[in-house]
């Protein structure tokens, strides 16, 4: 067994830039997915049937097809229809945000439905309107309950961003591909990349745990 990490390490700027892109894509898509997911969950909880159907249809599409297929349709298919090419970054953000929104909307829907109806009644009896009630009373409590699920979704997003390499985005996995081509070594670059993913997920989990503690401060007795 001869392992040579030094030959990989000399290409560290590739890895650095790849990791940076991975993080950037994850962060952007998490924000868009979160915002879109909340809207979608409210659509699904509305009393207007066609809106509910739209929400359910949307979710079923993104849950019922592979992410990679969605990415190919957006990146290779859409430009054919629109007549404008999409950059790998644009396609990635579009696909991952829309996809993530579908999952997050389900998480939110469950979280919102779990809130006691007395909370709505108390808010209504104080004359608080629907928007303020959802924004300041219901959703903050829902977020508390679903925070672990949201963190899972973000971790999934981070790891799944590796399929962006398929359309040629030079994120972390693609950076490793390039190193394999230049060094003719495979084990070391992919192992290093795996470690980098792992460390990123661990850091994310660490901050998520702290956030959870902060959010749950109102539950502490003593």
């Amino acid at each position: 067994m001869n392992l040579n990490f030094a030959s990989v390490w000399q290409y560290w700027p590739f890895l650095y830039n790849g990791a940076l892109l991975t993080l950037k894509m994850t962060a952007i898509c998490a924000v868009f997915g979160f915002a879109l997911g909340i809207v979608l969950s409210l659509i699904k909880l509305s009393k207007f049937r066609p809106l509910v159907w739209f929400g359910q249809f949307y979710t079923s599409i993104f849950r019922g097809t592979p992410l990679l297929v969605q990415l190919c349709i957006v990146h290779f298919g859409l430009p054919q229809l629109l007549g404008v090419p999409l950059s790998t970054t644009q396609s990635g953000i579009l696909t991952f945000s829309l996809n993530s929104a579908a999952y997050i909307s389900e998480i939110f829907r469950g979280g919102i439905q779990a809130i006691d109806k007395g909370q709505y009644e108390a808010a209504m009896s104080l004359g608080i309107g629907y928007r303020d009630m959802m924004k300041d009373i219901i959703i903050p409590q829902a977020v508390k309950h679903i925070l672990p699920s949201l963190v899972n979704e973000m971790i999934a997003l981070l790891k799944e961003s590796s399929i962006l390499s398929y359309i040629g985005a030079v994120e972390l996995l693609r950076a490793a591909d390039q190193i394999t081509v230049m060094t003719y070594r495979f084990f070391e670059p992919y192992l290093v990349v795996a470690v980098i993913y792992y460390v990123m997920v661990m850091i994310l989990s660490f901050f998520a745990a702290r956030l959870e503690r902060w959010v749950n401060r109102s539950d502490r007795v003593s």
Partner: protein
Amino acid sequence: MIEFRDVHKSFGKLEVLKGIQFRVEKGQVVTLIGPSGSGKSTILRCINLLEQPTSGQVFIEGTDITAPKVDIQSIRKDIGMVFQHFNLFPHMTVMENMTYAPIRVNKVPKEAAKAKAMELLALVGLTEKADAYPNKLSGGQKQRIAIARALAMEPKIMLFDEPTSALDPEMVKEVLEVIKSLAHTGITMVLVTHEMGFAREVSDRICFIDDGQILEDSTPDVFFANPKTDRAKAFLEKVL
């Protein structure tokens, strides 16, 4: 102040209110009593439209709030409600619970809202709990805060929906004391309670509800001493 005209309410096939005629004058304290499932809570919840009557009209200060296009939010902010299960907002401190709606809905300046909240906390005897979260309070304390939160909106009407039913026995008194201190201060009050002694002491009128109808409407002395209907007699025999 409050008037019901032939109000009916059905949940599916079950008719819980069968033509309620009912008036409460300004400043009056009226208690609705009756067996559980009789519809008394539903009457209360029709006053601020937490339940929408199936037919009939509800007037608040002369406004038909069951008419289409009524701005129900602006009506509700003048009607405080206290629930059996308190329904404090658990993610907000006591102070935030009490100032959110005044600031947001009534557009009261933040400092003024806080000052008012402190005043009300003094009234319910919980000044030291201003920065506590609800889960650190006992049931009785939660309910006193819930009352103070409703009062912070300076409502013209206060509704109490079985305010002591979820409390441990030793906490009932502290809540009833607070409610009693509000009676006859000019605020109109409608209560649903099973505390008969309290109802008798605090009310101007007692309405006895059974099977979705108001069977008796009289002063406490008359009602408790000489109930007219057999059903009221039977009910009082069980609870007194």
